[in-house]
């Protein structure tokens, strides 16, 4: 029965032109379970250094030493965006550290659902650190869903509160440079991370550390230092390695006149 169901599902997917997507996702999930199983059996995975993520603890420590706050923004997208989801997982880690050190954490939100999620995530982090009494719900606040009104308001918070550390994690649009430059002008240490390719250059020139695309997705696992979570990173690398091999072989074969690799991807057009 399960096989019949999967067979039907695969047929539907292929019919709608997403067969390769389904196949790749199944492969990725299988790799994820494989590495998770290895981690549970005691395997440890090494991750190469990511400077931007190593600086997270240092940045939080700096705010604590200076007795100033941390400002964290999850970007200008809704909770359905992958970068926002990645940002929320990093927020959890940052909130835990902030709670442990007793450092004020402000999260101006662009989307009401993201604000509610952020509130719950930060509250949970404070709870885990046994500091729930220090949690201030008002520090995770909604501003507006108008892009430049939000930007103007965050800039206002930056120049008035003068946080020592600014995290710009998530998906950003034209406001990226405005936010990062204002953060730079107040002397805050800034760590940015986004998968918005057009905004990455602005973060690179105006922030101390920038997480480029995939590094943002890897951040949660990297910061957790937990083998079970890091195993997901290993599965991601496995997927990327397969894609790398596919691209290399596909290019060589296509160069030689074969259309097999193109037709394999054809259904995803």
């Amino acid at each position: 029965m399960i096989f019949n169901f999967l067979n039907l599902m695969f047929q539907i997917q292929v019919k709608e032109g997403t067969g390769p997507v389904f196949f790749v996702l199944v492969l990725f999930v299988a790799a994820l379970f494989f590495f998770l199983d290895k981690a549970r059996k005691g395997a440890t995975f090494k991750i190469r250094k990511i400077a931007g993520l190593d600086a997270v603890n240092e940045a939080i420590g700096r705010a604590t030493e200076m007795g100033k706050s941390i400002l964290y923004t999850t970007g200008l997208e809704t909770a359905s965006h992958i970068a926002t989801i990645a940002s929320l997982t990093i927020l959890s880690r940052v909130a835990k550290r902030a709670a442990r050190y007793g450092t004020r954490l402000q999260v101006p939100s662009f989307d009401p659902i993201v604000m509610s999620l952020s509130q719950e995530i930060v509250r949970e982090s404070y709870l885990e650190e046994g500091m729930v009494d220090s949690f201030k719900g008002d520090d995770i606040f909604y501003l507006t869903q108008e892009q430049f009104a939000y930007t103007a308001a965050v800039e206002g918070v930056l120049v008035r509160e003068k946080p020592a550390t600014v995290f710009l994690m998530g998906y950003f649009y034209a406001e990226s440079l405005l936010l990062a430059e204002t953060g730079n002008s107040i002397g805050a240490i800034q760590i940015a991370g986004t998968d918005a390719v057009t905004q990455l250059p602005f973060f690179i020139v105006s922030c101390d550390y920038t997480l480029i695309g995939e590094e943002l997705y890897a951040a949660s696992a990297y910061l957790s230092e937990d083998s079970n979570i890091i195993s997901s990173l290993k599965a991601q690398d496995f997927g990327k390695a397969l894609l790398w091999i596919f691209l290399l072989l596909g290019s060589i074969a296509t160069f030689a006149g074969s259309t097999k690799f193109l037709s394999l991807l054809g259904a995803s057009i």
Partner: protein
Amino acid sequence: MILNLIAPFNTTEGLGIWIAAFLTLCIFSFLYKDNPFYKFAEHLFVGVSSGYYISIYYWNTLKPNMIDELTKGFTALGKGDMQKAFGLDESGAVMAEPHLRMLVPLMLGIFILLIFISRKNAWLSRISFAWYIGVASGIAIPTAMSTRVLLQAQGSIRDFCSYNADCAVSAGLEPQVATTALWINAFLLLIGTLSALAYFFFSLPSKGALKVMNKVGIYFLMISFGASFGYTVMARISLLIGRLQFLFYDWLGITIS
């Protein structure tokens, strides 16, 4: 350069121009430093935009999708038509209009509001968030896989086929006459893609061949970021020009003849 009259103050349009010019200057004043004029414009902007979006959400989402549907559903229920009330036709098939099925999202919405109303029952909001994140991820991940991975992979190897007439015809692509420059471009694209992808291998130590690839990858990334930076800065300059044009032409009435 001819100096015309400043926008008239006594017409609706003129008044609008004056207000817009004042608020533009208030926002520009931030370039000097934070000041009461900027604060005024900032708070006004945030307040007006929030009010605007509340109105948009009410008229475009809440009313048509929730209030109207529930009204129709309860009306049908009052008439004893249970199937129609829950958005089912005579044969029991699901209709596009959900009617009382909207009670489920309404309940999920109320669960979220419990965070602010009742701390004791706030845990129910997790059901809504779990549902929301689950559905959102379910939609976002396959889309990202298709557009950001498979279509990109296809684009990377497609050129090699397009430049080969036999391959292009059998793959249903438009054959292209390949020049040396186009071949170099295709190979550069391939090297750039492979090396940039290698840069994002996190679980492998960066040494040997991978280290070299990482270095090449980061060069490719930085070159593309540089190009993107220049391109986008020009677009931002055009935004500034648009604002200055408004101030000089529409407000001050300065025109170049």
